[in-house]
């Protein structure tokens, strides 16, 4: 499923996130996929997704500049393909 700004998303329950100096590593214990989250902002957004009704709300709540939103949508969409993120 494609993630958009209006998608309600959450972290997959089988995913663990480990903080790193560059952002974080996300590991899916089910499909064994490992993903670099390459900026602390994307880590904050991902961790807060389940608290918001849409990706747009999560981006706004975390103070992400609107000019960066397309990159975040692309990143979240990519993570749905890896099953790191689920569209609710």
């Amino acid at each position, binding site marked *: 499923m494609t993630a958009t700004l209006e998608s309600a998303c959450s972290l997959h329950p089988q995913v*663990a996130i*480990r903080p*790193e*100096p*560059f952002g974080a*590593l996300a*590991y899916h*214990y089910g499909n*064994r*996929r*490992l*993903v*670099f*989250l*390459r*900026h602390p*902002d*994307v880590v904050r957004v991902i961790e807060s997704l389940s608290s918001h009704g849409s990706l747009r709300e999560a981006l706004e709540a975390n103070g992400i500049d609107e*000019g*960066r939103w*397309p*990159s*975040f949508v*692309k*990143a979240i969409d*990519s*993570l749905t393909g*890896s099953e790191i993120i689920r569209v609710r």
Partner: protein
Amino acid sequence: MWLLLDSMDQDITAQNEEAVAPQQASPGARDTAGIVEELLVEEISIDGMCGVY
């Protein structure tokens, strides 16, 4: 899993810094019509690593 990754930590950090450095050095490298695209996530394959340790 994280124990395995701990042993890879320096390599991972080094690789990532190498990957990020070009963007920081030239932020306009991906600038098209004033829109800079960030590479925020990167999936890597760990298939075949189980037998390493």
